[in-house]
């Protein structure tokens, strides 16, 4: 039987009753917020379970929401079951002060560089990653540029008046 939102959610809730925080549907796609401590176990279950069979990691990235105290950084996985053509989005929120989460690079090989990119931009440390280094930015960079506290433009500039640009 082809996968659907109900099956995936009920299987996950049955298997990991404490790790599923929230689930909602956004543009026809099921979003599940998971406990970051269990992310590797959940991902491995989703990949290896015969019914779940999420064999394709579409995307791995992060988002920074500074106003959510204690869970500022969300690590977001887009996974795809190519047999049933079913997509799922998983989110794990971790604190900015201690941004550590287990790696998925042993589950999908392709997660390796995606995690390096996420580390490079957000400073998320993927525990167990074989080679967690910066990938796009220069090695001696000291900040993680996609965090919201780093403005795109130099705020000390006086020749640009933001009012005229709708900012």
């Amino acid at each position, binding site marked *: 039987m082809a996968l659907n939102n109900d099956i995936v959610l009920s299987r996950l809730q049955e298997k990991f009753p404490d790790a599923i925080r929230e689930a909602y549907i*956004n*543009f026809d*796609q099921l*979003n599940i917020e998971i406990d970051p401590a269990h992310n590797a176990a959940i991902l491995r279950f989703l990949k290896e379970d015969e019914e779940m069979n999420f*064999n*394709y*990691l*579409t*995307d791995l*990235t992060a*988002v*920074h929401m500074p106003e959510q105290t204690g869970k500022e950084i969300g690590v*977001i996985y*887009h996974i795809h079951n*190519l047999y049933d*053509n079913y*997509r799922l*989005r998983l989110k794990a929120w971790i604190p900015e002060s201690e941004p550590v989460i287990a790696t998925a690079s042993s589950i*999908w*090989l*392709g997660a*390796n*560089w*995606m995690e390096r*990119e996420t580390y490079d*931009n957000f400073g998320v440390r993927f525990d167990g990653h074989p080679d967690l280094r*910066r*990938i*796009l*930015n*220069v090695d001696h960079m000291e900040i993680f*540029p*996609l965090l919201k506290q780093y403005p*795109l*433009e130099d705020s000390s500039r006086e020749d640009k008046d933001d009012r005229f*640009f*709708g*900012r």
Partner: protein
Amino acid sequence: MTEQSIFGEDFVKPEEKQYNTLNLGPTHPATHGVFQNILQMDGEIIISAEPTIGYIHRAFEKLAERRPFYQVTPITDRLNYCSSPINNIGWHLTVEKLLNVSTPKRVDYMRVIIMELARIADHLVCNAVLGVDSGALTGFTYMFQERERIYDLYEEIAGARLTTNIGRVGGFERDFTPRFHEKLKEFLAGFPKRFEEFDSLITRNRIFMDRVVNVGPISAEKALSYSFAGPNLRAAGVDYDVRVMNPYCSYQDFDFMIPVGTHGDTFDRFVVRQNEIRESLKIINQAYNNLPEGNFHADCPEFYLPKKEDVYNSMEALIWHFKIVMGEVDLPAGEVYHSVEGANGELGYYLISDGGRTPYRLHFRRPSFIYYQAYPEMIKGQMLSDAILTLSSMNVIAGELDA
């Protein structure tokens, strides 16, 4: 009796063996783009490779956080700059999904024609250049002429050739011009013959086959695990195509095949791309012959720029023009992932909007970035000259790699 090596006295034990380190790139005439690989060489055999990327990183994801949706389109041009129209239209589709705008059939068909032209142009560049890298310059010169014809078609629609910024959210700025129709008909009539001539020059050429068969292979399991997409995944034997699996832009209306390979080697990648060009031609013919009547843009005045005559003559149109151009139009809050089949595979846009004028976060799922990480594994144990061909046939585009 002492232990004696079967290789005789000349045999060098592995621990005594010394390897050469070769720095390939970042700028090298044989790598098309800025790629650096530090290779450990045993003679001409590659032992290991360490790629360094990021030479043309332009922080697109950060830039996009300060740009209204109209101003994000030119950024997408510069991802895979060999097929910018696909990137542009993929972005428009993402925004339309967030705005809940549905486009008329005519817009879908026009987009399909343009995207398939872009796919042809992209695959032509990849395959023709693969020919050059293996020593066949003639085919390249012929096929670049064809690419020019496709660029002429873009120019007729958008006024630009390489970084096209084609179309708008909701559709196009104008309908296909008579000159476009004329040029497209000319292209559709002449291209297949010239393309088959190119194919007959290269594909079954003995010298070419000796150079590419079994070079840089990858298995289907490995390719899936590495999240390969597009022709590279299909060459390994997995028939995953976003156009078929999650049709967008009315792709379900067209009858076409998904070419697949078996070995995932350079030859299979070449042949899959060649066949995809033929399939793209089929799609263009179907879309063009059945081009529906109707409007060339969706009815979404809040997001689609008003006509220029109206802007000059009516106050309301001027206000809306100003609001849209200055990015005063807020996007609805929401979170959307949309993917299109780019020339290199699943090109995804993950857009988080907080209801402001700019994306709160925009992430590009760039196929080149994701599959380039398998490159060291694919060239291990191969000759140096094979590494060049493998890179060329994977069609890694530096702009898409580094974003």
